[in-house]
């Protein structure tokens, strides 16, 4: 049992580090789930802001721009 858990844990480590080494770019990555939940209004749109207070959002264009 103990050996099985350790093998499973090491498998997680290897897979995780492999994935981390391949997806090296941070600009396109999705924010970690450990910070926030992934629930959103729809399946595809996650509640991650894609624009800021002074940056126009695609759906709500800032007036005056």
């Amino acid at each position, binding site marked *: 049992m103990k050996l099985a858990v350790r093998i499973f844990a090491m498998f997680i480590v290897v897979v995780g580090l492999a994935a981390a080494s391949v997806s090296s770019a*941070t600009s396109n990555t999705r924010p*970690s789930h*450990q910070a926030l*939940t992934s629930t959103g*209004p729809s*399946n595809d749109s996650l509640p991650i802001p894609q624009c800021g207070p002074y940056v126009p959002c695609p759906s709500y264009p800032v007036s005056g721009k």
Partner: protein
Amino acid sequence: MTSQIAMTAMSVAEFCFWVLLGLLFWKKNLHHRFPAMGFYLALRVISTPALMAILYAQSQPWGHGYYVVYFCSYWAVYLASALLLFFICMEIFRSALSALPGLMKIGIMIFRWVVLVSVIVTFSSISFMHKGLLTVPDVVSGLMRSVGILELCLLAFLCLSMNALRLSIRDISFGLALGFGLMATDDFIAALIMTSHRLTLTASAQFVYEGVILVSLGIWVVYCALPEPARKPVVMSANSAIYRWNEIASALGHPGTQVAVQQPANSFFLTDVEDVVEKVISRNLKDRKSES
């Protein structure tokens, strides 16, 4: 059942898991042992419904102004989570090494340096493609990425040194490390998929992603609910390497008496040579006397 309803159900189940975990954590007084984890659970339980409410408000026709609130609060929570996860890793590390106080002390010192180096590497590797407030997501995502790698390293360390530390697989420090490692791997794989599929997770991948999160939370709930076995005393031979390292680390930790370190003389190099020559001559004289 449509996929959206199923996804919503999974998200609700996840929130219930967080609440249950928080309750178990408080009930068993584990927040005294892992205070940062306690704060992290509280942050998750409080911030999730609050952010969802703001998100709902900003999606309404009258709620455009809430977007700024959502943006700022989202990334503030994100930053707080990343910082708390650094401290949680340290707490797990400390708990795992509690049987060897000397190694724990020096290990924590090394751990802090590792954290500092990883933060510096994170900041130096950020591309800063965006400007203004949009640099915040880049910086905080980079921090979370380094935390994820740290979590995986911690899990690997516990797996490899489990026998030496006499750590049981039922120990909660191992359970927490396993859950965080699983979540970190899940995040990295999701990031990989999103990088290769242009920022979208397919529905099936998202179900797998959420499923792994639920499994991680389930692991934590089981670890918190079940009674933790008493830690076995670490018994090792007196000449074992880990025991000696612990002794050395303990000795390093003691302040002891202060000793003045002899500074090299500021004299000229030739004076040292003269001293050496005099010593050799005097030794030769002694040898000759003894021979005669």
